[in-house]
């Protein structure tokens, strides 16, 4: 579970590394299951963007609430979901977090502070604004956080939610994950400015830009936004610049993305860069690194076995739970 924000300790660094690695392995495993035909539906990956989901979620307090989108598995892992939850969910199993009712990262649990996304882009912005409104009404110090892609900022709920949160001065943090692409659409066809952060000015809000491949920078920007939110200064928009290193989903070979671009970004891989910096700065020994990797592997294998042996739901369950 998340730690108190503030200056990152050595242990914090290791956790950030662990969660990024775990994210990558979970998604890698999902790709594998997809190719084996075991996944129902598509597999969306955050390859190359793991620092954003992990760094932002890690900056929150346990009672804060976040709403992940499709590329934010890392945030859900930080929030305490296990790899098995992802495997079960993607394979539509009964014991998964939605009992086979919904797909991919579409799961959540209010007690864990996770609001499940829906496919419609941007729709979580007003919803997390509403959670923030509830905290404001009850005078709690809870902060809420959600994510939008460079595509999602073009939608109605993004605008209405941001404006509403700004007028109400709600403790909301919106992370714009600018990974260069919305499916096949490059950012240049999505907006006429170069920075999403510029949009903040339209709402009278501060906008920040961070290197989305630098987990510590992402973490720090979020801590700062959370501090502002907690002291009643209202919402923030943080643009994290990154690159989508795969197709939109597994089915998409993304031939429309220039190869050189991918090559350039591969050098900025958030996990490798962080790992290198930890080792160079003597914040992680090779032994510690190996131990973390082993822990990740062990968890993956244990959870995979569990998930694969879990049953599919029975048909009659489909008609249940329409109403509370």
């Amino acid at each position, binding site marked *: 579970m998340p730690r108190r924000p503030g200056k990152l300790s050595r242990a914090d660094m290791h956790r950030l590394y662990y969660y990024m690695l775990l994210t990558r392995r979970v998604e890698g495993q999902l790709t594998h299951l997809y190719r084996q035909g075991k996944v129902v539906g598509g597999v969306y990956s955050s390859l190359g963007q793991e620092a954003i989901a992990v760094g932002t979620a890690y900056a929150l307090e346990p009672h804060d609430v976040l709403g992940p989108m499709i590329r934010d598995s890392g945030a859900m892992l930080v929030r305490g979901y296990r790899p098995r939850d992802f495997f079960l969910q993607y394979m539509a199993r009964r014991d998964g977090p939605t009992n086979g009712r919904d797909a991919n990262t579409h799961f959540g649990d209010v007690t864990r502070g996770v609001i499940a996304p829906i496919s419609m882009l941007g729709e979580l912005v007003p919803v997390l604004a509403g959670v923030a409104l509830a905290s404001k009404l009850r005078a709690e110090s809870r902060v809420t956080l959600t994510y939008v892609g460079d595509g999602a900022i*073009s939608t*109605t*709920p993004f605008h209405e939610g941001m404006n509403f949160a700004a007028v109400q*001065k709600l403790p909301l943090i919106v992370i714009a994950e600018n990974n260069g692409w919305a499916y096949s659409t490059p950012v240049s066809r999505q*907006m*006429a*400015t170069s920075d999403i952060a510029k949009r903040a*000015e*339209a709402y*009278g809000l501060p906008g920040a830009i961070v290197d989305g491949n630098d987990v510590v920078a992402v973490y720090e920007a979020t801590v700062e936004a959370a501090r502002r939110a907690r002291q009643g200064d209202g919402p923030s928009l943080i643009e994290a610049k990154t690159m989508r290193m795969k197709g939109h989903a597994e089915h998409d070979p993304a031939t429309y993305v220039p190869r050189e671009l991918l090559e350039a970004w591969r050098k900025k891989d958030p996990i490798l860069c962080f790992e290198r910096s930890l080792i160079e700065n003597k914040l992680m020994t090779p032994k510690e690194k190996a131990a973390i990797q082993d822990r990740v592997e062990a968890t993956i294998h244990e959870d995979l076995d569990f998930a694969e042996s879990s049953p599919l739901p029975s048909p009659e369950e489909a008609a249940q739970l329409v109403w509370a």
Partner: protein
Amino acid sequence: MGVKHKTIRPARTSRHDRSGGGEGSRSGAPLARSHDVSRARPLPAADTLLRMLYLLKLTREVEVRIERVLYRQGKIVGGVYVGRGQEAIGVASAIQLVEGDFVLPSHRDLSAYLARGIPLERVLLNWMGRADAPSRGRDNTLHFGDLNKGIIPIVSPLGDTCPVACGLALQFKLRGKRNVALVYFGEGATSRGDVHEAMNFAAVMKLPVIFICNNNGYAYSTPVQKQYAVKDLWRRGPAYGMPGESVDGNDVYAVYSAHQRAIERARKGEGPSFVECKTFRMTGHSAHDAAEYVPAALFKEWEDKDPITRLQSDLLQRRLMTPEALATLHESVRKEVDEAVARAEARPLPDGESANEGVYCGPDCWWGQTRSQAFDV
């Protein structure tokens, strides 16, 4: 810009573009000073000014008749929204258009209809729901368009016409035309997603659309500080990558010149602009609303900035018009309205049965037979 405007200086506006940053103010308070950029341009020609004065007075007179006479007599039913005090915005922008251009006015922009040459009588017929009204009694107020005159009407859901303006502009672009689309909306409508989606869309595609915000201080009972948290709405422009500008919407010259720039840009293919026209709603939200939530001092303050009075006194002072000519204009406008009202009142209400016609487009429907061929493809 001061509060009293005995004379009007040419085209003084606060203009801000991508790089701009300014300490402006919200509607209802004095306009931005520190970042005013004087962009002197030739004043509109005298005949244009006189035509604008005529249109302003005509708009005012019809709306007074609609709101204070016909509505109270029960000859107009349903909601009654007028643009008293805001007429300069529609007039000084739409008057610059040429054939093939379009306006998409808001519910208070009768002025733009008249500037585009819609006969008064048609307006009144629609308000009164008569059989040969442009909407044949199907819809009310300014909810009627005219493709030949380049008018697409509003629908009640605010902001919905902004994406439509983009569609028109896309056609101009695809067909290689140099036309523009002017879409008007209140500051309340800027909170709607449709306005956001349209502004972004137009910016990305560099469409010839001018987004014109009538910031009249209130959206129904909601003051601007409950509507948005940004200091000045012009900042919305640069946020989407288009120029944004705030002008005194009660100053015919300022409105004219801001739109001149925006229209020129659009015709050259340089894309959309956002113009915030600061004004004030000199009425309640609609005829039934006494607007007790508006501090009386604000009405007083804005009464002094009335766009018609300001233009009149400027024209007199610059001797572009004599007091006698003004009196004559006043009388002739009254007469024009009297006559149009009388003609419209004489027209019958529609037949109930006709309600069923025209849901779909087809060769033998009434609309099909009367629709102009101009835009049929």
